[in-house]
Structure formats: structure tokens, C-alpha cells
């Protein structure tokens, strides 16, 4: 399994300066619920993330999240 840290060191509770915008949290999708997905960061912390801009997503996908919104789905996702 890919180490999420290679997409950045931020985690759901330590996400740097959010206004900078050049920070994003790498997370792995656990469950998909409509336009939201339950995701887990590298420390095992979980949050519901809006996936409107990266659909379709599936469990196992790696997303980059900024302010609770996924802005990218990473190429090496395991799907």
C-alpha cells in the first residue's frame, strides 16, 4: 500500500495554514456515501469529505483534501 506521506505531511488535525492553499491532506477513501466519502489519513483519523470535484471515487482511492473538500484524486490510487 502506498505511503500517504508521499503526497504531503498534513493530517486531518494538523493541516498547516489552510489559507495558504498550497497545503492538502492525503487521505484514503473507506466508504462512499453519495457526494461524500468517509476518509482516513495516515494517522488513522477519519472525516467525511466532499467529493464533488473528484467523482467517481471508490474505496481505496487516495484523495488530496483541502478544507473538507477533495481537490484531487491521485494517479497511483489502488483502483
Amino acid at each position, binding site marked *: 500500500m*502506498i*505511503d500517504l*506521506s*508521499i*503526497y*504531503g*505531511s498534513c493530517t486531518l488535525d494538523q493541516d*498547516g*495554514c*489552510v*489559507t*495558504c*492553499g*498550497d*497545503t*492538502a491532506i492525503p487521505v484514503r477513501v473507506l466508504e462512499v456515501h453519495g457526494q461524500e466519502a468517509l476518509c482516513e489519513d495516515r494517522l488513522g483519523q477519519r472525516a467525511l469529505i*466532499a467529493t*464533488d*470535484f*473528484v*467523482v467517481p471515487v471508490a474505496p481505496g482511492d487516495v484523495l*488530496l483534501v*483541502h*478544507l*473538507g*473538500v477533495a*481537490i*484531487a484524486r*491521485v*494517479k*497511483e490510487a489502488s483502483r
Partner: protein
Amino acid sequence: MRYVDEFRDPKLIRALADEIARLADPGYHYRIMEVCGGHTHAIYRHGIKSLLPENIDLIHGPGCPVCVLPMGRVDDGLSLTQYPDVIFTAFGDMMRVPGTHGSPLEYKARGADVRVVYSPLDALKLAQENPDRHVVFFAIGFETTAPSTALTIMRAKALGIRNFSVFCNHVLIVPAIRAILDSPDMRLDAFIGPGHVSTVIGCRPYLFIARNYRKPIVISGFEPVDLLQSMVMILRQLAEGRAEVENQYSRVVPWDGNQAALRAMADVFELRPYFEWRGLGFISQSALKISEACAEWDAERRFEIPGVRVTDPKAAQCGEVLKGVLKPHQCKLFGRECTPEHPIGALMVSSEGACAAYYDYIHRAAAVAD
């Protein structure tokens, strides 16, 4: 590479540092700008500067939206707290940013209903929970942050939530780079391009830097190997007389960006004719406002905004530092009157500001060593 250790591998780092030393012309003084505050911090956190030859100077760019926001806009936003039904919401990063009559946190201490939200979606939720109040969200950030504001307004529209509006301060990175390139007191050889901003806008918007200004730009990741490899790519371009947009961070950044996010931004925002940037002055088409189609969620249309203009404290040289003309420690106030505990300029307030980075990684370290 699949593991973070590989991006911090000492052997690979040494090999890249050697390659940089080989490529750099010892008779030339390089000035390379890292546009984004996240890169500035990564450079200091990982000690990248110490691996570069002395004739490579890294210049810190304008990549912190809090730092480039003029104090007048903070005052304008905070003027909305005078309305008794308004709940003023902003990111935690904004809370200590000083306006003329205090920061949002100080307004809160004086009794204004100021609340920290993590995301604009949380501000919208607050509006749903408080139907008899009006929630204003103070939006700020570059193109990575703007999609979340766009999504929030789209949801407010879809759900018919009308007690919510956005005071929009979103700015665009490309016009800022253009303003720096046009600045007469600035000499730059190349750029390290922003990583996560580029996941949204892609690489195409940077083409003018290579084509019109003949400067290389390499979009970079944030690990030591990423930054050093980007430096190698830049030096190779310079050595070979090329000026191209290259994407070192291809594991994250697609060439065309995130089309869904860009479409949402196009629906919700429109370009302002001009916008004032601290240190850079007025830059045309450099910021976003809420579009006509979403006017109902635009705080600037719903409320009377005073349009305050404030000059920066004269002694603080934020503008020169923002443009890269001065290094943070060359400002007269740095580390004395202006510290992260008692910031005078915005570059010290924001954790991504160049002054805060210098203070944390160099000034404090030197003080501990003493």
C-alpha cells in the same frame, strides 16, 4: 517511489545536491523564487538551503493570501460585525490578523459574534442551524481554497439557504507572478511553481512565464527530493538555454488541473477588474468576486461595505519582503518589534508568511544556539 523515506533518502539527496553543484555556474548569482509559502517552510524545515551552492539565492514569493491582503479588506470584513444579526465566520488563521481596530479575535473579545470555522461548508451548516441569524464567511485563499467556497455557494443555492453570504477575498496566483515579473526592481532567473494550487489550475496557466518572459518554472512537491530535483530541472533548463513549464510533482498535479473544480469556480466567481495586494499594489484581474448568478450570496452586495484603505505601518517593510527585494531579517522590525507573538506585519502573523518561517527556523534556532 511509494514511501516517504524514499523522498528523504540521504544518498539520493546527496546525489541531487552534487548534480546541482555541477550544473550551477560558479560565476553567476542565481535568483530563484519559490512562489508558495508551503515551499518556503519545507525549504527551512528540511534544511534545503544548506545543500545549495552559495550563489543560488532562494527568493520567497507572494504565496500567502493572508500576507498579501491589505488591512483595509480586514476592516471591511469586520465592519459586518456591527450588524446585530450577523455571525462573522473565518478560518482560524485569520483570527489574529490585525485590522485598524483590532483582529477578529479582539472583536470577539469586545462582544462581536465572531466564530472560527474550519471550512466554508461549516459556515453554511451554522447558517442552517441559525435560521434567524445571517452568517457571513470571510473567504480568503488562492485557487486551492476557492473551489471549497464555490462548492459551498453551490450548495447554499441548491438548498435555498439565504441567510448565508461570502465576503470574497480570493486571489489568483498567476497575475501575482506576472506583476512580480513586471516589477522593475526584481531580477529572477526561474520559479519553483506551487504544488497544490496546480492540482486545481494545472500547468497550462504558467506557459506565459516560459513563452513571454523566457523564465523556467518547475512545479514542485514538498519533500526534500522533490525540491532538489526541481532545482536540478531548473538549472538544466538554464544551462541549456531552455525556458519551459515542467511538472516535477506529476504524482499529484495533472497538466490540465481539476476541470470539475475549475467549472464550479467559473460558475460561482467572476474576475474583479482590479484588486489591491499588499506590497504589490493594484493588480488587474487578480482576484475573484461572486458572480451575478450567485449575487444573493455575495456579502458585498447584501451589505454596505465602507471600502477602507489603510497604509501599512511605515516601519514594517512587508512590501519589499513580499516582492523578494528584502529578506525577512533585513526588515528593521524583524525579531525585535515584530515577532510571531506580537506581529506588526501580516508576514509574521500568518504561519505560512516568509517572516514567520524565518523566525521559526532561523532566528529562534540561532537564539537557542546562543
